[in-house]
């Protein structure tokens, strides 16, 4: 990079930082205007004999810090939480969401595992509604407190900023580089190939070697393989084959297309929904009760602790599948929202 390019790179990094703090609707236009103004002033200084990088640094320092400049583009008093504090607010809001949701899911699963709650009771409409409404209540309470705290901080910070006319010096060279644009439709070939491999392996194992899928227990007396059927798990193999066939076809299609398309996104969503449906069938149709006949002739390979925990393993498996089902439903809804936002129907 020559000296002029370094100067222009500093300007681009500055504009990217200002843009991050601006409302999306204004961003491109403000950046274009500032780019034209800054480039012209830089060229003037360079024509007057100043070194480009030094001229760019002085120019940007006299302009002001990126978040201060971005704030000035907003009408005064408009923000409850201004651009400077908003990234921190967003971070804590997300943290609040993950912690509250995680705690709710953990306590529900824990209740099922310890036998305080059974999955069929949990899935009853009134019980689910209670769960969802308590979850929303706690999320809303925490979010409300967060908004109040940050709104107060915003006003305190604004009052302190207005009372000080002193411009603090800052170094534009410390601005982070502009990140490369992310193509949302780009596929990762290694990931697709990995998925195809996993689908083929699972399909072959489940169709031709079902006894190999289950729990492998190592002990001093030897190794014992307990297939999934010993835990009363029912797998709808034909439906699973349809799902795997669809997933395989989708991934092969993506390899051929070399990028995601609207149609491929819809197919992915349909497979997501089908997968969730299959999980639901598995949970409803399985007893998750460990069949002790399976241990005939082989109990000496297990310690007493393992023997006592085998029935518990069935319950744990039910809980895990329940959580996976919940995550699949949430994932499907998020996918649907993203598809409709990216490719509006109207």
């Amino acid at each position: 990079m020559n000296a002029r390019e370094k100067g222009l790179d500093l300007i681009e990094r500055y504009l990217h930082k200002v843009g991050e703090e601006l409302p999306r609707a204004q961003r491109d236009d403000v950046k274009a205007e500032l780019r034209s103004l800054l480039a012209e002033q830089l060229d003037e200084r360079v024509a007057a004999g100043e070194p480009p990088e030094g001229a760019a640094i002085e120019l940007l320092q006299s302009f002001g810090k990126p978040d201060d400049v971005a704030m000035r583009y907003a009408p005064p008093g408009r923000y409850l939480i201004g651009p400077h504090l908003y990234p921190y607010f967003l971070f804590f809001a997300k943290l609040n969401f993950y912690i509250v949701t995680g705690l709710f899911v953990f306590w529900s699963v824990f209740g099922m595992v310890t036998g305080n709650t059974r999955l069929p009771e949990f899935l009853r409409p009134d019980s689910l509604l209670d769960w969802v409404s308590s979850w929303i209540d706690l999320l809303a309470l925490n979010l409300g407190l967060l908004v109040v705290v940050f709104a107060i901080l915003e006003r305190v910070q604004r009052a302190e900023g207005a009372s000080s006319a002193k411009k603090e010096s800052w170094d534009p060279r410390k601005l982070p580089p502009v990140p490369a644009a992310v193509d949302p439709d780009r596929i990762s070939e290694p990931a697709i190939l990995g998925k195809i491999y996993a689908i083929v392996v699972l399909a072959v194992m489940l169709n031709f070697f079902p006894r190999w899928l289950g729990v492998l227990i190592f002990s001093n007396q030897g190794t014992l393989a307990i297939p999934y059927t010993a835990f009363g798990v029912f797998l709808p193999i034909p439906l699973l084959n349809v799902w795997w066939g669809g997933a395989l076809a989708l991934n092969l299609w993506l390899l051929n297309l070399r990028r995601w398309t609207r149609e491929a996104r819809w197919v992915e969503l349909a497979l997501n929904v089908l997968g969730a449906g299959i999980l639901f069938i598995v949970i409803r149709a399985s007893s998750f009760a460990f069949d002790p006949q399976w241990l005939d002739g082989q109990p000496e390979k297990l310690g007493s602790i393992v023997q006592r925990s085998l029935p518990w393993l069935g319950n744990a498996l039910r809980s895990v599948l329940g959580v996976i089902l919940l995550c699949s439903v949430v994932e499907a809804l998020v996918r649907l929202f993203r598809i409709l936002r990216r490719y509006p129907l109207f």
Partner: protein
Amino acid sequence: MTGPTQPEVLDGLALELRRGALVLAVLSQLHDEQYGYSLKKSLARAGLEIDEGTLYPLMRRLEMQGLLKSRWRVEDARPRRYYQISARGESTLRTLTGEWKELAKVLEGLLK
């Protein structure tokens, strides 16, 4: 925590005094189309120094308030956003000029 120093207090008050005049100064110079940098230079020639980080957002805000209009033009292979006072801006300028002159008269009397 220590409070602001005397020069900082003075700077802050001087800034507030000038801030009130900026809108009037900007509107008064945009009867003809100008872009941000050319306006900064013409105000500086008239004795009013404004830093770019204040002037350019101010011009955009005045446009959002309907007092200025703007358009992109390409000159010397360089795209520039040119601003000009709008009809509403002209009427606001007349009102503000009247208020400024009144205020100046009052202050002159107070400061004798």
